[in-house]
C-alpha cells in the first residue's frame, strides 16, 4: 500500500519520458503543458509516497481509507480513459492513412499539373507569338523614330487584334514609352515603368513572360526585345493578355487545395502528436479534477470516520465529554448518533460509579471515623468493655477491662471467652454463658473477683445481645464496672445513716440520764449512808453517759462530716499549733521547719483534728515507755505537703493493719473505732490520703495533702 504512490509516480515518469517532445518537433505549448502536468503530478505522488514511507507512526484515522478511495477512483478513471485514448489514437492514425492515401495524392498532383499546364500553354503561346515580332521591321522603325505616332498606334492596334492581346506597349532602350494600345478599356494616363523582368529581357535579348495580378485579375505579361541588325536591341515590346477568370479561379482553387493538402501532409506527425497531446491533456485534467473531487469526496466520506476514531481514542484516554457531529443523514450519521449515545451512557455510568465510589469512600471514612471514635472512646473509657461474637470469640476489649480485671495475656481478640475465663475470672465466663443462653436481651449481675494482690474487686457486669436488624454482626457486649468504691461508699452511707439515727435515738435519753445522775449526786448524796459507793455509782453513770455522748458525737461526726472550708494555711502555723498542744509531753518533738510562705490549701480545723488524732494515738502508744519518742514533721513536695507522725511504740499488729482505717475497728478498750476512719475521710475530702507507711519501729503515718485545691468533681 505504501509503495503504490511511488509506483504510480514511476509509471507517470516513464510515460513522461516516452512522450517527451523532440527537439525538432513542433508540438506547441500543449505538449509542454502536458509534460509540466505529468511532472507535477509525479512530484506530488513522490512526495506523498516518501511521506508514507517515512511516517512509521500510526496514520491519522481515515487517511488510509481516503488514500485508497482516491487511488481506486483515479484507477477506475484511468483505465477507460487510457483505453479511449489508445482507441482514438488508432482511429486518428487510420483516418490519416485514409486521408493521405496515394490516390488522393496522385489526383491532386494531376490536378495541379493540369493547372500548371494551362499557364504554361498561355506562356508558350505568348512566347511563340512574340518571337514573330522580335525582328519586325515596322517596330524597329518605330523605336528608331522613323514612323509617326499615328502609324505606330495603328500598327500596334493591328498586332493587338491579330494576337488577341489586350495591351501592347512599345518602349525604346531608354525605357521610354513610345506607343501603347489597350483593348476594351481606356489606357492609363501614365505608363507603368518596366520591371526587372523587362530589363532582363531587354538586357539578355530574350523573350520572357510572367504572370501578374492586377485588381484581382491575373494577366500574362510578355516581353520581346526588338533586335536590329545582328545583336543590338532597339527597344522592347510588352504585351498583356488577361487570363480567363473561370479557368484562373479553378486553377487557383486547385493550387489552394494542393497547398492545403501538402501542408496537412507536412504536418501529419504534428497533427497526430497534437491529437495525442490534446487527449493526454484532457486525460490529465480529468484525472486531476477527478482526483480533486475524489479527494474532497473521500475527505467528506472519511471525515466522520476520522472523527469517530479520534473520539474513540479520546474515550480510551478517559475523556467522556467528546461528542461528534451527527450531520450526515446516512449510515455514518447513524453511527455517530449511536456513538454519542454510547458515550453519554458511558459517561453517566462512570459518573454513577464515581458517585458510588465517593459515597463508599465517605461511608468508609465515616466508618473509620466511627471506629476511631469508638476505639478512642473505649480506650478512654474507665468502664471495661468486651465485645464477643456469636461463636464466643472475643472481638474487642478495651484497656479499661484489662486494668479492672487484671486480665492475663491470653485475653486477646479471637480468644474464646469461655476458655480464657478460668481461675478468678470464672464468673466472667459464667456471666457470658448465662447471657448467651437466656431469652432476654439484657443481663446485669454483681459479683466479686479476687485479684492477685489479695484484694477483692466488686464488679458490676452488664450484658446485651447484639442482633440488630440489618447488621451482619451478632454477638454480645459485656460492660464491666469496678463498683468497689461505690459499694463501699454506699455501705458507708448506709452506716452513717444508721449511726445518725442511732445517735439521735440514743442521745435523746442520755442527757436526762446524765442530768438525773448529777441531780441524784447533789441531792441525795447526803442522805445515803455509804457515800463512797454512791459516788462511785453516780460517777460511773455520768462517765458512761459521757462516754456514750462522745461515742454518739463521733457517730454524728462520721455521719454528718461537714464539707471542708478550704483556704491557704501556712504549714508552719499548723506545726506550731501542734507544738503548743503537745509540748507538755517531753517525748513529743515537733519539727517546725518549713518557711512561713509554704502554705497548704485546707480546712485548718479538720486538718488540725486529723493531726491531733494521729498525735493522740502516738502519745497513747508510747505512754508506758518514757524512752519512746513521738515525732511530727512536715515535708514539702512540689505538689503536696506531707505530715509525718512517727512513734517508737509497740507498733500495730500485722493483722490489724489492713483494718486500721475501717470504721468501728479499734485496738483500744475505750476506742470508738472511728478516729482513723474520720481522719482518712477528712484526708480524702481534701483530695489527699492518709496512709500507714510503717506498722512498727517506728509506727509511721503520713498525711498527704495537695498544695493546691483539688478540682471539684462534677457529680
Amino acid at each position, binding site marked *: 500500500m505504501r509503495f503504490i504512490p511511488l509506483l504510480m509516480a514511476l509509471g507517470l515518469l516513464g510515460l513522461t519520458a516516452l512522450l517527451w517532445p523532440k*527537439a525538432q518537433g*513542433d508540438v*506547441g*505549448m500543449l505538449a*509542454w503543458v502536458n509534460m509540466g502536468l505529468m511532472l507535477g503530478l509525479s512530484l506530488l505522488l513522490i512526495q506523498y509516497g516518501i511521506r508514507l514511507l517515512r511516517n512509521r507512526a500510526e496514520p491519522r484515522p481515515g487517511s488510509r481509507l481516503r488514500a485508497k478511495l482516491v487511488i481506486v477512483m483515479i484507477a477506475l478513471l484511468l483505465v477507460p480513459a487510457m483505453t479511449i485514448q489508445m482507441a482514438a489514437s488508432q482511429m486518428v492514425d487510420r483516418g490519416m492513412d485514409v486521408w493521405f492515401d496515394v490516390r488522393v495524392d496522385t489526383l491532386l498532383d494531376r490536378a*495541379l499539373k493540369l*493547372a*500548371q499546364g494551362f*499557364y504554361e500553354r498561355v506562356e508558350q503561346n505568348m512566347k511563340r507569338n512574340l518571337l514573330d515580332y522580335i525582328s519586325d521591321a515596322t517596330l524597329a522603325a518605330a523605336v528608331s523614330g522613323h514612323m509617326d505616332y499615328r502609324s505606330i498606334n495603328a500598327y500596334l492596334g493591328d498586332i493587338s487584334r491579330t494576337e488577341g492581346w489586350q495591351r501592347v506597349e512599345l518602349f525604346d532602350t531608354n525605357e521610354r514609352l513610345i506607343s501603347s494600345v489597350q483593348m476594351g478599356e481606356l489606357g492609363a494616363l501614365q505608363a507603368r515603368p518596366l520591371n*526587372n523582368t523587362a530589363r532582363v529581357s531587354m538586357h539578355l535579348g530574350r523573350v520572357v513572360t*510572367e*504572370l501578374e495580378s492586377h485588381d484581382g485579375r491575373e494577366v500574362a505579361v510578355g516581353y520581346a526585345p526588338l533586335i536590329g541588325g545582328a545583336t543590338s536591341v532597339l527597344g522592347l515590346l510588352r504585351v498583356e493578355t488577361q487570363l480567363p477568370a473561370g479557368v484562373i479561379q479553378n*486553377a*487557383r482553387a486547385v*493550387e489552394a487545395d*494542393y*497547398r492545403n493538402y*501538402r*501542408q496537412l*501532409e*507536412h*504536418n501529419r506527425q504534428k497533427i497526430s502528436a497534437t491529437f495525442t497531446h490534446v487527449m493526454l491533456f484532457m486525460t490529465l485534467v480529468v484525472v486531476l479534477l477527478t482526483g480533486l473531487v475524489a479527494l474532497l469526496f473521500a475527505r467528506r466520506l472519511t471525515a466522520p470516520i476520522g472523527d469517530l476514531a479520534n473520539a474513540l481514542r479520546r474515550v480510551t484516554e478517559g475523556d467522556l465529554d467528546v461528542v461528534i457531529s451527527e450531520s450526515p443523514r446516512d449510515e455514518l450519521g447513524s453511527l455517530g448518533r449511536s456513538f454519542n449515545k454510547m458515550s453519554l451512557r458511558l459517561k453517566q455510568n462512570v459518573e454513577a460509579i464515581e458517585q458510588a465510589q465517593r459515597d463508599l469512600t465517605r461511608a468508609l471514612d465515616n466508618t473509620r471515623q466511627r471506629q476511631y471514635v469508638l476505639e478512642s472512646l473505649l480506650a478512654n473509657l474507665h468502664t471495661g468493655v468486651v465485645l464477643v461474637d456469636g461463636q464466643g470469640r472475643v472481638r474487642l476489649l478495651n484497656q479499661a477491662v484489662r486494668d479492672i480485671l487484671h486480665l492475663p495475656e491470653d485475653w486477646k481478640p479471637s480468644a474464646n471467652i469461655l476458655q480464657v475465663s478460668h481461675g478468678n475470672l470464672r464468673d466472667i465466663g459464667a456471666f457470658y454463658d448465662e447471657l448467651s443462653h437466656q431469652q432476654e436481651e439484657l443481663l446485669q449481675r454483681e459479683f466479686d473477683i479476687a485479684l492477685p494482690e489479695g484484694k477483692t474487686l466488686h464488679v458490676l457486669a452488664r450484658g446485651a445481645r447484639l442482633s440488630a436488624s440489618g447488621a451482619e454482626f451478632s454477638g454480645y457486649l459485656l460492660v464491666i464496672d469496678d463498683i468497689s468504691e461505690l459499694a463501699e461508699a454506699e455501705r458507708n452511707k448506709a452506716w452513717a445513716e444508721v449511726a445518725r439515727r442511732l445517735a439521735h435515738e440514743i442521745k435523746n435519753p442520755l442527757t436526762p440520764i446524765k442530768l438525773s445522775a448529777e441531780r441524784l449526786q447533789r441531792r441525795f448524796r447526803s442522805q445515803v449512808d455509804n457515800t463512797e459507793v454512791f459516788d462511785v455509782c453516780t460517777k460511773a453513770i455520768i462517765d458512761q453517759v459521757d462516754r456514750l455522748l462522745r461515742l454518739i458525737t463521733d457517730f454524728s461526726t462520721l455521719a454528718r462530716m461537714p464539707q471542708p472550708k478550704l483556704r491557704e494555711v501556712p504549714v508552719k502555723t499548723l506545726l506550731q499549733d501542734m507544738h503548743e498542744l503537745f509540748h507538755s509531753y517531753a517525748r513529743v518533738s515537733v519539727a517546725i521547719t518549713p518557711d512561713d510562705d509554704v502554705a497548704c490549701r485546707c480546712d485548718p480545723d479538720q486538718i488540725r483534728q486529723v493531726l491531733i488524732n494521729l498525735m493522740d494515738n502516738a502519745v497513747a502508744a508510747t505512754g508506758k515507755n518514757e524512752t519512746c519518742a513521738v515525732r511530727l514533721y512536715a515535708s514539702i513536695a512540689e505538689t503536696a505537703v506531707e505530715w509525718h507522725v512517727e512513734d517508737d511504740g509497740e507498733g500495730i499488729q500485722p493483722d490489724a493493719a489492713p483494718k486500721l482505717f475501717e470504721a468501728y475497728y479499734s485496738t483500744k478498750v475505750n476506742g470508738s473505732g472511728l478516729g482513723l476512719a474520720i481522719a482518712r475521710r477528712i484526708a480524702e475530702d481534701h483530695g489527699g490520703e492518709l496512709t500507714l507507711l510503717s506498722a512498727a519501729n517506728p509506727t509511721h503515718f503520713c498525711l498527704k495533702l495537695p498544695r493546691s485545691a483539688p478540682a471539684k468533681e462534677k457529680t
Partner: protein
Amino acid sequence: MSVIMLSAQAPAAESGALQIRFDQKVLYCAARIAINNKAFSPTMKDGVAMATEWRIKVSRLRRYWLNEDIADITVTRHARPDLLTRSWLLTESSSDISRRVYRLQDAIQFLSGLDDFPVLDRSLLKKNMPYRITVSVQIHSEGISEAWWAGLWQPAAAAMQQDFSLP
C-alpha cells in the same frame, strides 16, 4: 571610406556564420544559417509558405550587471510559393520590397541569410567599449503566428553572437 570587416564564427559553429562590418556611419551584419536545403526545399516545393525571423540584438557588455541593450531589431523574410507559375514571391519586412524568383535555390538563399544588413548607427556606440551582437533565427512554415505565446516555446533554428568593440 574606410570599411572595417570583422568576421567571427558563432559559438555554435554549426548554427551559421556571422560577420559584422563598419563603415563610417553604420554597423552592418551579414549572417547565414548553416541549414541544409532539405529543411526548406521539400516544404517549399509542396507550396507551403515559409519565413525566417531574424532577431538582431546589440548590447553593451557589463561585468557586474546585466548587459545594456543598445538595439533590438527584428527582420522577417517571407517566401510565398506560386505553384501554378512555379515561382516564389520573396518579401522582406524591413523594406517591404518583394521580388519573384523562379528557382528554389534563390528562395532558400533569400530565407537563409542576411547580406550587409544595416543594424544601427555607429554614433550609438562608444570607442573601446565591449559590445556583443547576437543574431537568432526562427524558421516558420505556414506563416508566422501572431499570438503572443507563439514564440515562447518556438526554439531558435540558429543563434550566433560575436563580441566587438569600436577601434
